[in-house]
C-alpha cells in the first residue's frame, strides 16, 4: 500500500540509452516491489527539467533521481532537495562537488565516468595510428580528424570530444581538426550529410572520425562508404562511437566501426535501484553491498565503468533489459 | 492669394501596367463645391486615375496640382493630409473591428496622458453616433464590420470619407451596392458637402444618378479623357454615345420571351436556420420567367437565394424543381440540379484572385462536368482557352489577355468574368444577385439581352436587384421582401416604383400597426 515512491527525471526518452536504463529500472522495481518508481521526461530541455523537479516534489516522493541536464545549477538543485528533505541521487551526469556532498548527507551519485568514453575512443585510435603508419593519409605527420558533436551544451558531448583528443595527445600524437565544430545533434542522417560534404573536400586528408554517439558514427560510415572507403584494408578509416547500440555492434562486426564503448543501461538501472533499496533497508552503500560487476563505490559516489567494445569482444556489448535480478 | 479656379488639377498623367497603358496623358480638372462625374466603360481607367490622386499608385509621368500647388502624393496618408478622402471601389472593411473603429481608424480620438494616446472611447462613440445621426445612417457603432451587409459596409465607407472634412472626396462607385433609399441619402449628403465648398469626384455607371447629382461630367475611354461637359448640356443618349462610341437607343432589350405555364422552381415555407433571417417564404417560378426580387437593405434577399443554392442552412421548408422535391446541401448539389448563382460580393465569393481570366471562366464547368475539358487524362487547354475567349469577346471583358490574373482587372470586368463562369454551364435556373453591379451601360445591355435570350429558351431566371429600373424593366414578376418576410408579389408590367417601395417597407408597417 504505502510503498515509498521514487521520482526519476530523465533527460530525454528519445535517447536509446536513457530509454533502456529507464526500462531496466522500472523492470527491477516491479520485480522487487519495495519501492515504487514514477518517472518523467525532460525532453532535452532544462526548463522542462526544472518543471519536472517541482512536479516530483509536489507528488511527495521519498527518493528523487535526477539525470541532470542543468549541470550549472547542481548546487541549487541540491539545496532545493535538502529543503524538501528528499534523498537525492544524481544519475548519469556530472558529479556534484565535494561541498555539495558536505552540504547534504542524503545526496548520492550513480554514474559512469563520461570521460572514459572519450578516452576509450582516443586510445583506440592512438593504437591504430601506431600500428598503421599508412594511417596518416596525407603524410603531414598530424592526425587529421573530424569531430561530430551531439548537442554542444551536453556535458557528455563536451567531455567525449575533449578526452578523446586528450588521449591522442597523451600518446604523443599531433592532431588537427577538420571543419570546426560539426554539430550533428546525435542524428544519423545529419552526420551522414555533413560528413559527405566534408569528404568531398577533404577526402585525402581525413585520418579518423570521432563521434559522440554510435548513430552519428554510423552516418559517417555510410558517407565514407559512398565516398569509396571501407572497400578493403587500404580504404579503412578509423571511426569511433559511443553507446554500443545494436546497430553499432553490427558495424563492429562488419569491420567498419573501430571502437565503441558500452555504458550498460541495465547496470545503471540496477545500481540506482539497489542504492535506493539499500538506503530503504538502512544499509550502507558500498561496493560489496551493491554487488554489481564493474560498479565501484567511493563515499556517496557510485561509479560504473565504461567497457570498450571492439570487434574482439562484441559479446560484452549485450545486455538484457529484462534482467531484474540485483 | 486668390482662389484658384480649380481645386484639383491633373496634368498629363500617364500610368502603365504590364500589358496595359491604363492612363494615357490624362488632363483632369475639378472645381471646388461641384460634383464632377467621371464616366467610362469598364476598364477605361477611372479607378486608376483616382488611385493616382490618392497616392495608391504613382503616375509614370504628369503632375498633380492641389489648390494651385504642385505636390507629390506618395501614400494615402499624404493624400489625407492634403484634404483628399476616397471611397474605394473594392476595399473591404476591417472585418474584425467595430463600425466606429472602421470609421475613425488612423485617427481615433484620444487623450494624451503621460505621452500615451489613450483611446477616448466615449468620444469615439459619441462622434460616431453624431456622424451617423447627421448622415441619417442607422448602424450600431459597436457592430463588427464583418457582420454588416455589403450595403451597410458601403454606408460606413461613405461616413468615413465624409468624416475627414476633406476638400476633395473621391467616390468610386459609391452606390453600386446601395438601394435607392440609401442613394437618396447619399445625395443629400453630397448636397450638404458641396454647399460647404467640398469638391466631389463621382464615379458611377448609373447615368440617371450622374445627371441628377453632377455639375460636370468627364468621360474616359481607353485611358484617355475624351472630354468634359457641363451636365445640363448632356442627356442619357449623349453620354452613352460618347462613352460607348456608338448610338444606344434603348436601355433594355425588347421583351421577346414569354413565361411558360409549367413551374420550374418552387420553394415552400423556406425558413433560415438563423433566427434573424428570412421566415416562411413560399413562391414558385415558371420556366422562361424572369423573377425579380426587390427589397430594402437587410431584407434577407441574399440569404434567401444563398439558402436555395445550398450555401446556408435552412431549418424548415422544401425545394421543388420541376415538381420534384430536391435536397440541396451544397452548391455542388445545386449545380448538379442545373442551378447557378452569381453572388453579391465578387471579391469575397466570386473571383479566384490568383487565377487567370481563363481559369476563372472555366472553373465551374470543369468541376461540374469533369469529362468536358478532358483530353486523355489532362485538361484540354485549347478548349478552355476557346471557351474563355468566347466570353471575353461576348461580354467585352477588357483584359490584356485571357492569361492575365483576374485581380488585375477593373471591378466591372471582374464581375463580367464571374458571370461568364455561370453562363458557361448553361444552367436551367440562373440566380443573379445584383448582376449588373459596377457594369457599364453598354455591357448591361448585353447582359439583359442574354437574360432575354435565356428566358426565351425556357430557362428560369431569378434576379435580386436594388436598381429599380432594372427590376421593373426586366422582371415578369417581382417578389418584394421586407425584413425576412415575403410581403408580396407584383406583376412585372403593372409594377411601379411606389408599389415596390410600399411593399418593401410593409412588414414594418404591419408590425407597427400590430404593436399599437
Amino acid at each position: 500500500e504505502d510503498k515509498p515512491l521514487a521520482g526519476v527525471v530523465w533527460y530525454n526518452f528519445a535517447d536509446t540509452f536513457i530509454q533502456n536504463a529507464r526500462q531496466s529500472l522500472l523492470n527491477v522495481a516491479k520485480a522487487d516491489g519495495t519501492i515504487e518508481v514514477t518517472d518523467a521526461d525532460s525532453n532535452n530541455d532544462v526548463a522542462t527539467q526544472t518543471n519536472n523537479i517541482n512536479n516530483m516534489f509536489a507528488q511527495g516522493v521519498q527518493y528523487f533521481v535526477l539525470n541532470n541536464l542543468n549541470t550549472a545549477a547542481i548546487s541549487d538543485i541540491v539545496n532545493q532537495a535538502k529543503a524538501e528533505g528528499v534523498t537525492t541521487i544524481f544519475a548519469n551526469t556530472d558529479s556534484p562537488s565535494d561541498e555539495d556532498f558536505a552540504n547534504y548527507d542524503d545526496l548520492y551519485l550513480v554514474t559512469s565516468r563520461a570521460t572514459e568514453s572519450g578516452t576509450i575512443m582516443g586510445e583506440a585510435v592512438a593504437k591504430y595510428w601506431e600500428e598503421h603508419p599508412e594511417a596518416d593519409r596525407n603524410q603531414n605527420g598530424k592526425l587529421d580528424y573530424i569531430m561530430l558533436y551531439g548537442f554542444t551544451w551536453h556535458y557528455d558531448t563536451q567531455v567525449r570530444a575533449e578526452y578523446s583528443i586528450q588521449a591522442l595527445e597523451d600518446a604523443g600524437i599531433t592532431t588537427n581538426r577538420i571543419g570546426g565544430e560539426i554539430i550533428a545533434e546525435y542524428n544519423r542522417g545529419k552526420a551522414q550529410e555533413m560528413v559527405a560534404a566534408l569528404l568531398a573536400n577533404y577526402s585525402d586528408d581525413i585520418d579518423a572520425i570521432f563521434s559522440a554517439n554510435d548513430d552519428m558514427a554510423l552516418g559517417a560510415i555510410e558517407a565514407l562508404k559512398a565516398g569509396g572507403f571501407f572497400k578493403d584494408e587500404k580504404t579503412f578509416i578509423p571511426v569511433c562511437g559511443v553507446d554500443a547500440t545494436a546497430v553499432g555492434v553490427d558495424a563492429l562486426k562488419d569491420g567498419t566501426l573501430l571502437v565503441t564503448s558500452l555504458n550498460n543501461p541495465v547496470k545503471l538501472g540496477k545500481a540506482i535501484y539497489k542504492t535506493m533499496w539499500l538506503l530503504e533497508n538502512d544499509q550502507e552503500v558500498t561496493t560489496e553491498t551493491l554487488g554489481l560487476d564493474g560498479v565501484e563505490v567511493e563515499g556517496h559516489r557510485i561509479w560504473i565503468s565504461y567497457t570498450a567494445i571492439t570487434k574482439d569482444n562484441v559479446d560484452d556489448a549485450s545486455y538484457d533489459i529484462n534482467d531484474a535480478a540485483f | 492669394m486668390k482662389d484658384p479656379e480649380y481645386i484639383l488639377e491633373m496634368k498629363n498623367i500617364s500610368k502603365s501596367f504590364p500589358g496595359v497603358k491604363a492612363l494615357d496623358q490624362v488632363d483632369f480638372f475639378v472645381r471646388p463645391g461641384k460634383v464632377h462625374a467621371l464616366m467610362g466603360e469598364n476598364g477605361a481607367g477611372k479607378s486608376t486615375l483616382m488611385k493616382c490622386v490618392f497616392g495608391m499608385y504613382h503616375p509614370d509621368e504628369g503632375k498633380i496640382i492641389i489648390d494651385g500647388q504642385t505636390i507629390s502624393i506618395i501614400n494615402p496618408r499624404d493624400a489625407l493630409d492634403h484634404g483628399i478622402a476616397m471611397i474605394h471601389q473594392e476595399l473591404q472593411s476591417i472585418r474584425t473591428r467595430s463600425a466606429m473603429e472602421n470609421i475613425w481608424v488612423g485617427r481615433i480620438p484620444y487623450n494624451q496622458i503621460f505621452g500615451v494616446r489613450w483611446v477616448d472611447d466615449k468620444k469615439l462613440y459619441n462622434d460616431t453616433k453624431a456622424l451617423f445621426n447627421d448622415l441619417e445612417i442607422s448602424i450600431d457603432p459597436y457592430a463588427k464590420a464583418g457582420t454588416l451587409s455589403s450595403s451597410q459596409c458601403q454606408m460606413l465607407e461613405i461616413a468615413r470619407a465624409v468624416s475627414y472634412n476633406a476638400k476633395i472626396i473621391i467616390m468610386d462607385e459609391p452606390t453600386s451596392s446601395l438601394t435607392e433609399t440609401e442613394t437618396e441619402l447619399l445625395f443629400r449628403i453630397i448636397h450638404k458637402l458641396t454647399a460647404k465648398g467640398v469638391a466631389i469626384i463621382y464615379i458611377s455607371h448609373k447615368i440617371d444618378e450622374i445627371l441628377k447629382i453632377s455639375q460636370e461630367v468627364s468621360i474616359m475611354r481607353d485611358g484617355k479623357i475624351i472630354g468634359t461637359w457641363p451636365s445640363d448640356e448632356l442627356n442619357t443618349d449623349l453620354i452613352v454615345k460618347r462613352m460607348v462610341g456608338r448610338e444606344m437607343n434603348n436601355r433594355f432589350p425588347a421583351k421577346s420571351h414569354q413565361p411558360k405555364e409549367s413551374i420550374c422552381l418552387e420553394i415552400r415555407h423556406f425558413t433560415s436556420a438563423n433566427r434573424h433571417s428570412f421566415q416562411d417564404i413560399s413562391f414558385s417560378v415558371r420556366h422562361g420567367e424572369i423573377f425579380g426580387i426587390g427589397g430594402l437593405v437587410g431584407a434577407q434577399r441574399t440569404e434567401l437565394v444563398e439558402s436555395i443554392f445550398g450555401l446556408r442552412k435552412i431549418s424548415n421548408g422544401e425545394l421543388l424543381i420541376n415538381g420534384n422535391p430536391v435536397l440541396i446541401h451544397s452548391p455542388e448539389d445545386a449545380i448538379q440540379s442545373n442551378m447557378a448563382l452569381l453572388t453579391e460580393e465578387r471579391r469575397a465569393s466570386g473571383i479566384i484572385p490568383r487565377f487567370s481570366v481563363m481559369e476563372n471562366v472555366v472553373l465551374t464547368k470543369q468541376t461540374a462536368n469533369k469529362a468536358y475539358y478532358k483530353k486523355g487524362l489532362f485538361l484540354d487547354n485549347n478548349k478552355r482557352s476557346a471557351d474563355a475567349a468566347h466570353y471575353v469577346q461576348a461580354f467585352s471583358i477588357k483584359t490584356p489577355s485571357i492569361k492575365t490574373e483576374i485581380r488585375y482587372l477593373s471591378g466591372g470586368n471582374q464581375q463580367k468574368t464571374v458571370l461568364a463562369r455561370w453562363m458557361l454551364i448553361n444552367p436551367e435556373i440562373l440566380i443573379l444577385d445584383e448582376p449588373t453591379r459596377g457594369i457599364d451601360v453598354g455591357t448591361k445591355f448585353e447582359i439583359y439581352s442574354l437574360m432575354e435570350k435565356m428566358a426565351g429558351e425556357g430557362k428560369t431566371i431569378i434576379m435580386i436587384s436594388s436598381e429599380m429600373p432594372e427590376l421593373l424593366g426586366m422582371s415578369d414578376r417581382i417578389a418584394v421582401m421586407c425584413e425576412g418576410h415575403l410581403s408580396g408579389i407584383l406583376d412585372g408590367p403593372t409594377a411601379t416604383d411606389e408599389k415596390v417601395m410600399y411593399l418593401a417597407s410593409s412588414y414594418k408597417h404591419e408590425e407597427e400597426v400590430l404593436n399599437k
Partner: protein
Amino acid sequence: MKTKNNFSLQYIFINYALYIIMALMILAIGMMSPKFFSLRVLRDILMQSSTRIIVAMGCMYILVSGSADLSGGRTVGLAAVIAGSLAQKSDYYIKFWPNLPEMPLIVPIFAAILIGLIIGLSNGFVTAKLKVPSFLATLSVMMVAYGANQLYCNKAPNNSQPLGGFLKTFSELGTGSFLNIPYIVYIAIFVCIFQFILLTKTCLGREIFACGSNQEAARVSGINVFKIQMVTFALAGACYGLAGCLEAARTGSATSNYGNGYEMDAIASCIVGGCSMTGGVGNVFGVFIGVLIFNIINYGLTFIGLSSYWQWVVKGLIIIVAVSLDMRKYNKEN
C-alpha cells in the same frame, strides 16, 4: 420557449467549451491523484506558466498584427545566455567575463530586454521593409540569433558549457516569492495587464488590430503600417528578452538551447486562446488561458505518472477535442 432552454444549456457549452474542458481535465487528474488539489500544485503550474505566458504575449502581438513569428524560442535562448553571463558571481570558477565585476540586478534584465528588442527590430525590418514573408524573415533571424548564441556560449573560458553560478539576487528573481506567490508570476501578470491595456485602451493597440485585420484598409486610412509592424516586433522581442532573463533566473543556468520550441508552444497557445493566424483577432485573457491549458496538461500528465510517450498521444488528442469543440462557437449560423 424551446429556444430559450436550448440557449442556456447549449450556449454555455458552446461558448465556454475551453473552460469546461479545462475543468474536466483538472477534475479527472484530481480524481486519479487527489494531491493535485493543492496550493503547491497551483503555485507550480502558475510558476511554470509564467515565462511561457510572457513568450505567448509577445507572440500574440505578432499574430494580432497579422504576421507569424518563429524567432521567439531562440530569442529567449539568447537573452537567457546574455542575462546569465552578466549575472555571475565574481568567484564562480568558469566566469563568463572573468574581469567583469558583479553587476546590479538591473543590468542582466536590461541587457536581455535590449537583445530581445534588437532581434525584434531585425524581424520587423526584414518583414516590413525588405518584404520577406514573416515566416521566413523570423526563421532567418532566428537562425542568426541561434548561431550568435552558440558562438557566444563557445567563447573561452565557457566553451559551450551551461552558464551557472548566478548571483543570489538574480536567482532570487526567478525562485523567490512574495506572499507565497513567486515574483515571476507577478511579472507575468503585469505583462498581461500591460498588454491588455496597450491593445485595448490605446490608439497604438487599435492600430495594431486594424493592420492585422486588413492591412490594405489600414494603409489607405493613413496608418503607417511599417511603423506598426516595427513596434509590434519590438514589443514581442522585448517580451522574449524578458522571458529569457526570467528563464535563466528560474532554472539557475543558461545554455544556447534554452527556449528551443517555445515559439511553437506560444503560437499554439495563442490559437487555442482565440487568436487567428490571419491576424486581427485575439484577446489577452484567452491567450493566458491557452497557455494555462497547455501547462496543466503537461504538469497533470506527468503528475499522474503517465509515460512521456503516452503524454504525446494524450496531449495531441486533448487539443483536438478541446479546440474542435471550441471552434463550434464560430461555426454557428449567424
